Structure formats: C-alpha cells, structure tokens
C-alpha cells in the first residue's frame, strides 16, 4: 500500500505536473499552487485523495498506538499569546467602518443628515 507521502506526490504529479520525487516541489504545489486552481480542480484532488486514503469516518482508521510516548512538558506547550486586537489592525478598522451595518454611529449620522 502506498504511503501518504507517495499518494500526495502522485496526485501533485497527476494534477500539477510536479516531479513526484521532488518532495519540496510537491509541498510547494499543495501550499501555493493548489489553492489558486479552480474549485472544481480542488474538489477533484480532494476527492481522489479521499478515495486513495480511505479518509472517511464511516470506515474508521487503522488502530496504531505509538509506544512509550513521553508525557509532554510545559516547555513543549507554550501558551497561545493574546492578540492585542481581534484579527489585527486591518480587521479592526474594517469592523469599525462597517459599524453602520448594525446601526452604529455612522448609520445614525446618515439618518440624521437625511432628515
């Protein structure tokens, strides 16, 4: 049975003409090129991947338990930093400018000036 990596590489070769032995090119194709292709092509790739990998909840997965995996340490679990603003400055400004959609100050100003 082909490994996951082989399947991914074969699909990149089939759909993207990428050299399947060049794993860096394969990774680049999945990361950069595939998202820019038409939705139908992406669906075809995923469909094929699902078919070959048996990626389905109904079938379950092969049970495999790694031996003796040590308990992680706190060093291996850094807390996720709190972002200063939800979604960053760009989204902050976008939300601020969109407030009129929810009847915010911009909307009230518009109504006041239309009277």
């Amino acid at each position, binding site marked *: 049975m082909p490994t*996951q990596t082989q399947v*991914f590489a074969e699909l990149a070769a089939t759909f993207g003409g990428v050299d399947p032995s060049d794993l860096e090119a394969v990774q680049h194709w*999945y*990361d950069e090129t*595939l*998202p820019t292709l038409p*939705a139908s092509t*992406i*669906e075809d*790739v*995923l*469909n094929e*991947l*699902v078919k070959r*990998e048996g*990626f*389905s*909840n109904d079938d*379950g*997965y*092969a*049970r*495999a*338990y*790694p*031996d*003796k*995996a*040590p*308990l*992680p*340490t*706190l*060093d*291996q*679990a*850094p*807390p*996720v930093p*709190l*972002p*200063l*603003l*939800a*979604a960053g400055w760009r*989204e*902050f400004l976008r*939300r*601020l400018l969109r407030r009129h959609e929810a009847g915010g100050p911009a909307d009230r100003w518009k109504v006041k000036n239309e009277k």
Partner: protein
Amino acid sequence: MDFRRWTGVRFVSRAPTRSGGEIDLRVTKMAPAHVLWWQSHVQPIIDEDPTRVDNDWNWVLLAPLTRLFGLATAKRPVGYTVGIAGHDTGHFIPCALVLLLGRDRALDNHRKRSAFTWYLTTAPDAVLLSIEDYQLKEDRLPKRLGTIALDVSVTHSLNRVARGRVSLHSDTKGGERLLSWYENRGMEVLPEGQKLPAGPRRLFKPSDGHYCYYTIDAALTASRELDSLR
C-alpha cells in the same frame, strides 16, 4: 460596552474541579509531542468504548491530513491542545484536542466567514487518573472539558476574522444526545437539506440535520459564560 469583538480574547486558563476548586489549564498549539502521547495513552482507552464518537480516531493521521486539506483549500487549518499545566512537575497533560479550519464559509450566511471545528475530543477521566508520571486525584479532575474545548474554537474565531462564528458537524454516531449537547451550548442546528456552502463538504458530508453553528451573538454569549475561567 463589550469590547470582545474588537480586542483579543484570552483562552481559558483554569477549569473547575469536582472538589469545587480550580485547576490550571493551558491552551497551546497542537504539537507532535501532544499527538503522540494522546495516541499512545489516551486513544487506546477511548477505543475500548464503542459508544464514543471518537472511537477509532487516529490522531497521528488526522492532524497532518486536516492540515493538508485545510492548506489545499486555503482554509487556514489549526490545531489546539488543552492540557493541565502541572507546574509542580513541569508536565503538560493533554486533556482535549481540537482541530479546526480557521477560515470557512458560515453555514447560515455563505458570504460570511466562520471557523469550522473538524475534530474535537476530550480525555476520559480514567486516563487522567492513571498517568504514571502525574498523579491526579479524583477531586482534582477538571470538569467542563467539552465546553472548554468548544470555547477554544469560539475564541479562535473571535481572535481571527470570523467574529465568533463557529460551525461543525455533530457526528451522527452521537445521535440526538450529542446534537442536544451542542444545542445546550447555544448552537443552532442547520435544518436537514438546507444548502451547504460550496466546497467538498457538499460531496462528502451532505446537509443531514447534524450541522451546528454559532451565530455571532450566540458565540459572544457562550464566550462570556467562561470569562471567570480565562
């Protein structure tokens, strides 16, 4: 005024315990060390219970596959681990895993963005009580782990571009009981047959009355409920 939509929201950092106290938690990005420990110590116990919907999940496979699917469809996949912060021993004990897509289409309004929780699991009590390197007493067991894991998705959504919107598919194996659990946490259920956003999900998992979603208001309410634990 609630500034939650404008400022970042902290992840939960404590969980209530059975004794009425609290235990320190940490939410971190999912790392291979967490997945390997989970698959070797937690999943075997979960697999002994055929009634659990996460029975037979293979996290060693799920984590990279979700990443690949998410990257291929530009949906910003991300994994989080919720764990007990054992400050006394320096250990981190994973007790919930969440895999989600950070940028998906909302179920109730396909033009809006939402996070999509793909996989969510919590550790059974039996596992947490039988860790060789970390002795946890029964009265120190964290409660509300499922709610906290779901809150991870909401917090991620609030802190990114989806404003708290979260959607997920309640596994049909969990039946009405699991669906009700999500409803009790404020989620809406997408009526069976209602059109899903364009994408592979339409092919693989059609609208079967088990898709749930948080509206912005419901997500904010759910988020506020856990503020005392942040």
